[in-house]
């Protein structure tokens, strides 16, 4: 498996792999789901969007993947505006969604093979799939089992294996640790850190303050469609993120009322 991400990172170290510029989304019913979001994720960096339900985290990810078109502004992956050239942009990004079911009637190997080919990676062997499944923590005997027999944690591991196999410079994760037991969550975090160290730009949404602090290089606190604070890891040293989060939320809510 060659490593495009690292190369891409080394060539242009300063250019962000993922970027949002004044990214906004107003739905047809008038709800402003995302309000002028600006953020950048560099190669080798984990950015965690932290916020409650309806804060706009998932909307931001959906805009990056062009599942919806922005009302204003733009999302960029590897310098490509996603809503202008979604096909080219999607070659640069891997996605792990919350609670992914995958194809329940296919085995893990079949799911991996299908999604890898869909992502344009046709050169993988069965051995590659086996290795990556072992790497994400799926035991050998589970590889040929149909996904409908899998637990949520196992499916999530399979999902991250698919993302790894895509070998893209950017990875988007939507609530990746929700519903995972503590051990699975911990393994997941370790895996994310490995991927970051390989040079990938990772943007994840979460409402898990503990995990965000544990893994993120940057944390963006979101509320009601707006990015209300952005803190670097160094700024969070010794800070109580939970208190900070609640304070921002409260402050914003008071301002709104």
């Amino acid at each position, binding site marked *: 498996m060659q490593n495009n991400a690292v190369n891409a990172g080394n060539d242009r170290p300063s250019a962000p792999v993922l970027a949002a510029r004044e990214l906004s989304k107003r739905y047809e019913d008038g709800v402003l789901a995302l309000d002028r979001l600006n953020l950048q994720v560099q190669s080798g960096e984990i950015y965690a969007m932290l916020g409650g339900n309806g804060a706009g985290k998932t909307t931001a990810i*959906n805009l990056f*993947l062009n*599942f*919806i078109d922005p009302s204003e502004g733009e999302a960029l992956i590897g310098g490509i505006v996603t809503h202008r050239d*979604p*096909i*080219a942009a*999607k*070659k640069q*990004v*891997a*996605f792990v*969604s919350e*609670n*992914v*079911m*995958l*194809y*329940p*009637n*296919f085995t893990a190997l*079949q799911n991996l093979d*299908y*999604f890898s*080919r*869909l*992502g*344009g990676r046709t050169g993988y062997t069965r051995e590659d799939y086996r290795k990556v499944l072992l790497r994400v923590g799926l035991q050998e005997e589970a590889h040929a089992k*149909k996904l409908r027999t899998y637990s949520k944690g196992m499916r999530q591991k399979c*999902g991250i294996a*698919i993302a790894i196999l*895509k070998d893209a410079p950017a990875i*988007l994760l939507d609530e990746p640790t929700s519903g995972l037991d503590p051990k699975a969550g911990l393994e997941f975090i370790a895996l994310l850190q490995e991927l970051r160290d390989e040079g990938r730009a990772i943007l994840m949404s979460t409402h898990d303050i503990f995990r965000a602090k544990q893994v993120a290089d940057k944390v963006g606190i979101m509320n009601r469609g707006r990015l209300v604070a952005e803190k670097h890891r160094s700024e969070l040293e010794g800070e109580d993120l939970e208190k900070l989060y609640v304070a921002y939320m409260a402050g914003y809510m008071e301002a709104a009322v």
Partner: protein
Amino acid sequence: MLSLLIQKELKSIIASPKFVGTFGTCAVLILLSVFIGIQEYRASMTQYETARQLNDQEMAESSSWSALHTRVYRQPDPMQIFVSGVHYDIGRFSAISEWEEIKLRRSNYSEDPIFAIFRFIDFSFVVQIALSLLAILFTYDAINGEREQGTLKLTFANPVPRVRYILGKLIGSWLGMVIPLLIPILLALLLVLLYRIPLTADHWLRIFLLIGFSLLFFTFFLALGLLVSARTRSSSVAFLLLLVGWVTLVLIIPRAGAMLAGQLVPVPGIAEIDSKLAGYSQERWDQHSEAMSQRYQERNAVTAGMSAEEREAYEDANMWAWLEEEDAERKKLQQDISEYGRKLQEDFRNRRAIQEQLAFILARFSPASAYQLAAMQLAGNDIDLKTRYEDAMQAYRTIFNDFLDMKRKESGGHSGMRISISSESGINISTGGVDAQSLDLSEVPRFTPPDYLLSRSLGRVMPDLVLLVLFTVLAFAGAFVGFLRYDVR
């Protein structure tokens, strides 16, 4: 990319837990329907041969040309194995004689009414009911199911153009279902060969066309499933909608069409026609006898002043002319009555034809009816089968009677009258001499069943073909457009 998407659809259909059960059921139904069809065909063939032999025997026993009468039988056709159509509904034979009208009697259903209630399952029925349900069962969650399990998002997080995805879906699910279905269909054809059912090239062509139509009909429901799946968010809603749609298309519209046509174009019943004809005939005969009595009075008035001799001479002189005059009038009257009866029949047939056409037009709003009508046309078991046979029998009756007339003249003309009463053919009154030796039946013209050319069938199925293609294309287009705007989240 497209072939990857197609392959995935194929695999996911075959890997689906419902695959074995549903396809197994359909395969069994197809094979069973053809097997039963073969048995039924063989039984009706035996019945046909036996009845014909019996009729030949009865004819051979006849001692005079004047008393000779026959029966002609409707010939079973191997296509009834696949599509029974109206085969079981209409009578199997008609008596052919001078004194009886052509009427097809004794349908299978009139003999075994149980089958009229629970109709035979034939191949076209399996296609219409079971395969359409199967198509729905595998497509109702084709798009929205993928949304629900999150794979749609995951798929479109990859560089996949939507057009290619929906095309892959259409082609993949079509292949994934048609290929497994072709296996029992081919096995069924093998069964037909194994039982040595006599099939001509014409039959084979009809069978392949029927299979083609069946697959087209199946494709429509597949497209309909995709259409609904691409326009709903949840698979359970889609399933309910499709079930309602299926009931409407397959069960309601075909019947409602016929019922509505019956209301819009009322057709008089046979009894009504008979009573009209009887009324007319009564009226004419009354008029006739009134005119006759008036004429007698006139004739009597002329001879009023004459002596008995003069009157007798006068009457003798005019008697022949009078008799001829009366005979001519009677003949004219009978002609008028039968002409009136013919017109009534024609009017009845026309009205019924209009009603049928309207019923077909209304019913064709459902692809199920279009398929059923096309299948019946291809099998030659369509609604016109009865008329075709009646016309052929009518023509044969004329030939047969002309032949008898000729034979009667040859053997000595009118010399007596014979009345026979039997429960089988009613009261027979015949005139003619009795021949001493038995008859040479080899010259008796034989009945040839009406042929139904493939080219004519093809002409008739054209509207249904066009409709089925149109319905299918519309459903596909709807699914296509629906998916291009589908929210994958």
